């Protein structure tokens, strides 16, 4: 068995609302898996089921072969969890937060003290280890939560939107830490930042309304949705007139405009020729095929931009 995580037909419903619908998944051991989806897609529900905080309505999930339904304690022994919110104990210092976590995992001081020293060094918090978390910046608190999740050397690490609300520098710093974990453990990450998934994940799954919409590496997803029919056209003049022209063309499926720059989505690849027939070549400053980003893939699948 080479799967760290297996979900088998997981369904979670509450009061008639189905948050996760017959969801199945296998995550290979030692990889970074990213679950992408807008808010309300069901990502956090899945993490809560996998970390035994919530019981599924139907189906079962396994972490390193242990069922979340029948072997919850074993599952919790093997996992580390970084929740969406920094649930640090503000009445304990940073180090005491880590010590309490180690004790809850049944570790002895001889085992946890060197490990905590190592983690505090790794996350750059050693100099502030005797300070209370309230005195930390958001990025430092996040790094402390990650350090806490790693104290007992988990085999599977769950990160629920780990960089939400962080400034760009703190995000990059946290990405570096997560990259450093690759191969040493399985990382299950949820996010709604496309660049984060692109930068960190070996495999990405996009979900919405509790079901899987697409699954693969970032490159595979982009390839699959690269149908060569979105073009960027910049006009030298008459941009307003061309907007009217484009609006009247039946094979133009979408137009987004920023000044004189248009992003034009065509019905199919063959529509490029009739499009060029309707545009006067001398008015065009630049035309290029737009390479799809992960965000384009996401939008084309979920039908909308990230829901906040």
């Amino acid at each position: 068995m080479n799967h760290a995580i297996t979900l088998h037909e997981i369904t979670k419903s509450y009061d008639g609302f189905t948050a996760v619908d017959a969801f199945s998944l296998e995550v290979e051991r030692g990889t970074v898996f990213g679950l992408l989806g807008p808010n309300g897609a069901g990502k956090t529900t899945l993490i809560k089921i996998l970390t035994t905080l919530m019981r599924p309505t139907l189906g079962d999930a396994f972490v390193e072969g242990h069922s979340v339904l029948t072997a919850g304690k074993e599952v919790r022994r093997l996992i580390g969890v970084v929740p969406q919110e920094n649930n640090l104990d503000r009445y304990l210092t940073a180090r005491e937060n880590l010590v309490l976590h180690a004790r809850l995992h049944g570790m002895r001081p001889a085992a946890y003290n060197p490990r905590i020293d190592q983690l505090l060094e790794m996350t750059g918090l050693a100099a502030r280890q005797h300070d209370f978390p309230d005195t930390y910046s958001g990025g430092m608190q996040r790094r402390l939560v990650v350090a806490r999740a790693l104290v007992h050397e988990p085999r599977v690490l769950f990160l629920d939107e780990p960089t939400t609300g962080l400034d760009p520098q703190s995000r990059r710093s946290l990405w570096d830490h997560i990259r450093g974990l690759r191969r040493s453990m399985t990382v299950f990450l949820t996010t709604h930042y496309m660049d984060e998934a692109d930068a960190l994940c070996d495999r990405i799954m996009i979900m919405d309304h509790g079901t899987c919409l697409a699954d693969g590496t970032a490159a595979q997803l982009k390839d699959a949705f690269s149908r060569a029919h979105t073009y960027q056209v910049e006009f030298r003049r008459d941009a307003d007139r061309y907007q009217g022209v484009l609006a009247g063309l039946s094979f133009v499926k979408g137009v987004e405009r920023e000044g004189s720059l248009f992003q034009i989505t065509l019905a199919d690849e063959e529509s490029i020729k009739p499009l060029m027939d309707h545009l006067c070549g001398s008015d065009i400053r630049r035309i290029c095929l737009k390479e799809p980003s992960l965000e384009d893939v996401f939008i084309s699948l979920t039908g909308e931009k990230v829901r906040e």
Partner: protein
Amino acid sequence: MFKGAFSIWGRDMLVLKRSIISELVSVVAYPLTLYLAFGFGLKGYITDVNGVPYPLFIAPGLISMTAVNAAFDESSWSMWFHRKVQRTIEEYRVTPVTVYDIVIGKIFSGFSQGAVKGTVVFLVILFLTPFRIDYANLPMYLLCIALSSMTFSCLGTICGTVIDKPENIGRVQSVIIVPLIFMAGIFFPLSSYPASILPLIQLLPTTAVFEGARDALLTGTIPTHYLVNLVLSAAFCFAVAVYTFNRKMAE
């Protein structure tokens, strides 16, 4: 077994240790004020109750009140705060500890706070006033305090588990806990009640707490019906607290 409960209790005691002075000042001030106001203020009007000097009559109840109030406060607010504000209960729940570890740890924290604060009020009253006891009676009194603190700690845990809005915890305290305490005869003898309602008053767990404490401290014995009441109340509240917390966490 219960290693997790011990770790959670250890965390709470560490936090208590850090703020022990400010905690004790605020905890001692209230019962001491009551003791001075009622014990000395009314001494000229009420010399004794059933042959017991009035300051001595109210002292055991005030010490017990401090202990049970502290147990209730710590358990209810701590459980609510860790569940709704810090969300540290969620952090505990993704470690190998069980929900039983968490609830037992929290109940014992409340119990310990009650015991520590009750003891300090006892010592302060002993130091500042002519209140004196026969120390041979102390073990029975401590048993009474322990059972009472356990009951109130469990009640606090139940409130902190099921109540989401903090103002509702305050309402439970002012509408249920405080009347139960004051109806139980801290400041007056139960014989003041009309005979028709006295049996009901005697069934209250708080009556067992305060009457039992007074009897224990002054005579060295707890009347059997009060002892049974204290033990059954503690056991029942413990079972309900564990059940309620378990149910809440499964939601």
